[in-house]
């Protein structure tokens, strides 16, 4: 850890320069990130060569089932790693590598650049403290006066559509419904005016009509603040409705990435296609969902070839021995040995 601290101190000084100067630097770039748990805890890497980009103002979807590594990938951006995890590759926010950043670098990152909204709003606020304290804590630590911090908090609560924001500041989390509390959490995430917002299943715990409102708020705020957003979800339909581009993960690897509309119209990876077919749809005349046989790869298994081979209708012998690389095509990329054969056409 000692040498990493050193490297951050160096980087810390260069931060303002990177931030202002280079608009060609992507807002968020994961490059070939591999994350392993200590020996014995898992047979395969939790993340296996994950690369992705989020540009300023963009909404990028990270879609997958439980155990696919989507949440872990999202958390690496804040430097929140599982205990004793070993990583290779780079996670850069505005050019600064997160994985080698020391405590001071991480603090700066979390305080000023990147905010995260989690799935369960009740688990992400302190139930013993008033909403006003929760919202102003970061601002006050950043040196703002109490009066200014409260004014800013009130402004943000208005922005996320909370009626009577002054009154809300004095209330406790239990006095809010799940949807209202998630708005408070979003307001808190925006106090630092972050360049990047990480949203890990932010609407999964909410009712469907509330989900629509919260997503509407996220999109509006993103448009006005120019924030980039990484939206992690298991819900392909939701991802398609709000994301510019989508990455699909399976067993720690990215298996396909494409602009949302294109991914839906013409999935190239059999897993994406199967996932779409297994999603129940509400449109009239929609086919009943088709199940994918088998179950996702557990952490105890380390498939040698394509991780989806055992469940794939198109798998041939080669798929079980050869690990497919993510290959670029016209609109995106897919990691399937048979993608060229047009198996899904």
């Amino acid at each position, binding site marked *: 850890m000692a040498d990493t601290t050193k490297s951050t101190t160096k980087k810390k000084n260069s931060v303002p320069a990177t931030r202002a100067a280079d608009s060609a630097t992507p807002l968020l770039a994961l490059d070939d990130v591999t994350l392993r748990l200590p020996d014995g805890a898992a047979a395969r890497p939790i993340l296996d060569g994950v690369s992705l980009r989020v540009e300023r103002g963009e909404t990028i979807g990270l879609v997958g089932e439980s155990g696919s590594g989507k949440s872990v990938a999202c958390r690496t951006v804040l430097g929140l790693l599982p205990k004793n995890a070993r990583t290779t590759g780079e996670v850069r926010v505005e050019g600064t590598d997160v994985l080698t950043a020391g405590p001071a670098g991480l603090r700066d990152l979390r305080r000023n650049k990147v905010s995260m909204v989690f799935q369960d709003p009740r688990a992400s606020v302190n139930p013993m403290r008033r909403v006003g304290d929760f919202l102003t804590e970061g601002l006050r630590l950043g040196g703002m006066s109490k009066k200014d911090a409260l004014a800013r908090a009130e402004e943000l609560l208005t922005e996320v559509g909370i009626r009577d924001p002054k009154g809300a500041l004095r209330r406790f989390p239990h006095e809010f419904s799940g949807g209202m509390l998630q708005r408070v959490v979003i307001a808190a995430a925006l106090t630092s005016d972050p360049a990047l917002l990480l949203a890990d299943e932010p609407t999964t715990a909410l009712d*469907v*009509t509330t989900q629509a*409102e919260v997503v509407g708020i996220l999109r509006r705020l993103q448009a006005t603040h120019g924030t980039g957003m990484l939206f992690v979800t298991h819900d392909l339909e939701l991802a398609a*409705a709000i994301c510019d581009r989508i990455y699909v993960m399976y067993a720690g690897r990215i298996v396909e990435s494409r602009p949302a509309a294109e991914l839906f119209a013409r999935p190239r990876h059999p897993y994406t296609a199967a996932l779409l077919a297994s999603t*129940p749809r509400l449109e009239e005349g*929609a086919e009943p969902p088709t*199940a994918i046989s088998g179950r996702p790869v557990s952490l105890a298994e380390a498939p040698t070839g394509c991780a989806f081979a055992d469940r794939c209708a198109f798998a041939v012998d080669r798929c079980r021995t050869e690990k497919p690389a993510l290959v670029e095509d016209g609109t995106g990329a897919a990691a399937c040995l048979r993608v060229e054969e047009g198996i899904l056409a």
Partner: protein
Amino acid sequence: MSKPKTPQGGPEAAAGLLEVRGLCRTFGDHKAVDDVSFTLPPGGSVGIVGESGSGKTTTARMIVGLERPDGGSITVGGRERASRPRNRAERLARAREVQMVFQDPYLSLDPRIAVRDCLDEVLRLHAPELGKPGREARVAELLDQVGLGAREAGALPKRLSGGQRQRVAIARALAANPRVMILDEAVAALDVSIQAQILELLATIRREEGIGYLFVSHDLAVVKHITDDVVVLRNGKIVESGRTADVLSAPQHAYTRLLIDSVPGPGWDPERIAESRRALA
């Protein structure tokens, strides 16, 4: 409320397998369920949809007998079950009529009991005539029916995935040989690829066994594919009911329309949904 019991197979049984009439339940001064009535025909499938606080789970819990109604009647095959059971025999008879599968497969199984023993326990209670060898055979049959093998039979719940646990919960419900199965958000906690497997399994079981389903869910797309009829609840009251296909394609009530519009899909517009939601409030 304590209507005289109708003998099995009486004239009332022909109308509906499960009849719910004027069901009410109040918690403090909050009316959780307010005059809810519907009919589940034999071998039918009725969906109860609504958001949190709509009273859908309370309705389900009253039907299975986990909650006592303040008013109204619930009959299965013509037998009233809204009142307190008078003795053990009646309680067991009611349990044989209606079984429930809960949302969270991680909480609904005893972590100390292996799958085989979990099913055996139900059979000991509800089918004592089988004897030990008969129960063993039945356990194997039930596991086979839900797609689990010998390896899972000896496993503790912690060794099983969410989908496998939900299969165990379904097998456990089937062990009592029920006439009605209540599925309370039974696929909500599962991944989509696994959810589709369980939905297929449920469709097969219904076809083969003729069990009536009461499918409680917030997910309209799932309800569309597994139910024949649907009841839409809001704040404890029914706002709309009818054939699922009709209600979903031509909703009559503004709230039903809002629910349908809120489901992400092509043309999804959160701003417009928020607007119609405010108009309804």
